[in-house]
């Protein structure tokens, strides 16, 4: 089984996670820039974070045979802090990086005027830098947030086939199904979305433009829930090819639109000189 987790915050995860993910079949990940739980108060905090997403984290992943890519954006929560607004001007540098395969996470948190402005500006950046866009739908007031996100996407002029609306559920999936956008589902260990519910959604809505991710981060989450969902699909009668489509070919097709996704096998010695400095506890 091969899995590309299209949304996971590896910065917050340990090397144990990388090891278990590799063993479960995760061969590639996309790590969206988001918030870190602790609010940032200046643009330098963001550039250090972005640097890690295009430098250190891909190196860490490569030591476990996992290919790491990133999406870069000013997230909607922190878009509301005027001290962080300057980050918008720094994004173009990062949106040209080899490892950056989309603009994201953009979208809404509390649906403020500031979020409107930053969301639209970043969809324009996606068009300018020829990148797809990853849209986070809000956890509160989700249905209205999803509708409003779709309106902003339509207004931006970006090709809907280059946009994914993420964190969807039974209530919001129908809003997005016929828009031409991709549909992302984050599987959590609590109530938001579970493997059995995900399987029912796939049975009802089909496999086309469907993306399944763990969205694992610093909160209660589980990086193996992509694999658990794949297993649940098989138990429910989906074929191996169906699983491969949802877990590998779909995300490869979506992020492949960037022209920058590289999922060729991670070279044995390419990144490390077999140094294994992480396993040894660093220096």
């Amino acid at each position, binding site marked *: 089984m091969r899995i590309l987790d299209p949304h996971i915050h590896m910065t917050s995860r340990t090397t144990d996670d990388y090891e278990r993910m590799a063993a479960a079949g995760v061969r590639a990940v996309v790590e969206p820039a988001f918030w870190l739980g602790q609010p940032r108060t200046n643009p330098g905090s963001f550039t250090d974070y972005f640097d890690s997403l*295009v430098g250190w984290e891909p*190196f860490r992943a490569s030591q476990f045979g996992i290919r790491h890519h990133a999406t870069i954006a000013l997230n909607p929560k922190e878009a509301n802090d005027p001290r962080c607004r300057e980050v918008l001007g720094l994004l173009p*540098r990062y949106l040209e990086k080899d490892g950056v395969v989309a603009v994201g996470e953009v979208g809404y948190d509390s649906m403020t005027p500031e979020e409107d402005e930053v969301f639209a500006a970043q969809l324009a950046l996606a068009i300018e830098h020829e990148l797809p866009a990853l849209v986070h739908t809000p956890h509160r007031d989700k249905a209205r947030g999803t509708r409003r996100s779709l309106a902003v996407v339509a207004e931006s002029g970006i090709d809907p086939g280059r946009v994914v609306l993420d964190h969807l559920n039974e209530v919001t999936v129908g809003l997005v199904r016929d828009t031409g956008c991709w549909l992302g589902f984050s599987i959590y260990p609590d109530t938001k979305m579970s493997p059995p519910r995900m399987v029912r959604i796939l049975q009802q809505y089909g496999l086309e433009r469907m993306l399944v991710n763990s969205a694992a981060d610093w909160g209660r989450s589980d990086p193996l829930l992509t694999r658990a969902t794949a297993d649940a699909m098989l138990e429910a009668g989906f074929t191996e090819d169906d699983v491969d489509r949802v877990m590998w070919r779909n995300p490869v097709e979506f992020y492949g639109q960037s022209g*920058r996704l590289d999922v060729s096998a991670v070279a044995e010695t390419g*990144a490390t000189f*077999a140094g294994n*400095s992480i396993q040894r506890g660093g220096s």
Partner: protein
Amino acid sequence: MTTLDELRAVVPAQGWLGEALERVAADPAAIGRLFPAVGRRCGRAPLPDAPGWSTDEAARALLLAALPAERVAAEAETLYRYGDAAEKRAVLKALPLLPVGDAGVPLLRDAIRTNDPRLVAAALGPYARRLDDAAWRQAVLKCVFMGVPLAVVDHLDERADAELATMLAGLLEERRAAGRDLAPDVLALLDRLKGV
């Protein structure tokens, strides 16, 4: 040491790179967006005729060299600051070929502080002669610790001294106490330093 002319011979200024070099010479600020795209545009294959260099690294060195001389140090600093690992590595490798004097030394020190062996290795090329002895010894020791082959260290035998031998011997003692050893290239260096 590989020269700019040797790099020009193996990575000719044609196609995308040819245009990029002209743009950078005419409009130095254009390098900010061209530099990160080099790997996708020019490829990343190793260059047999420029040992130790890959196509993207060579093309990036040529882009830096195409800048007006008075802009090179500042642009190199910025490109390194905002670079991904491949860009940072290319800047580090280009430093000895560029008219930057000692201005690149802080970049070297930054690279040596990282935990990415690709950056530490790239910091120990010919430009590392500008590092003071204490920093250079610590960098070599870090290579040994991280398992980076010592072949990457420019002028290793000329510069290795008794102090480095003492540091390496200390590391060897710790490793052996833990039932481990150092790589053969390190043991060979220690033997040479002890005059065995």
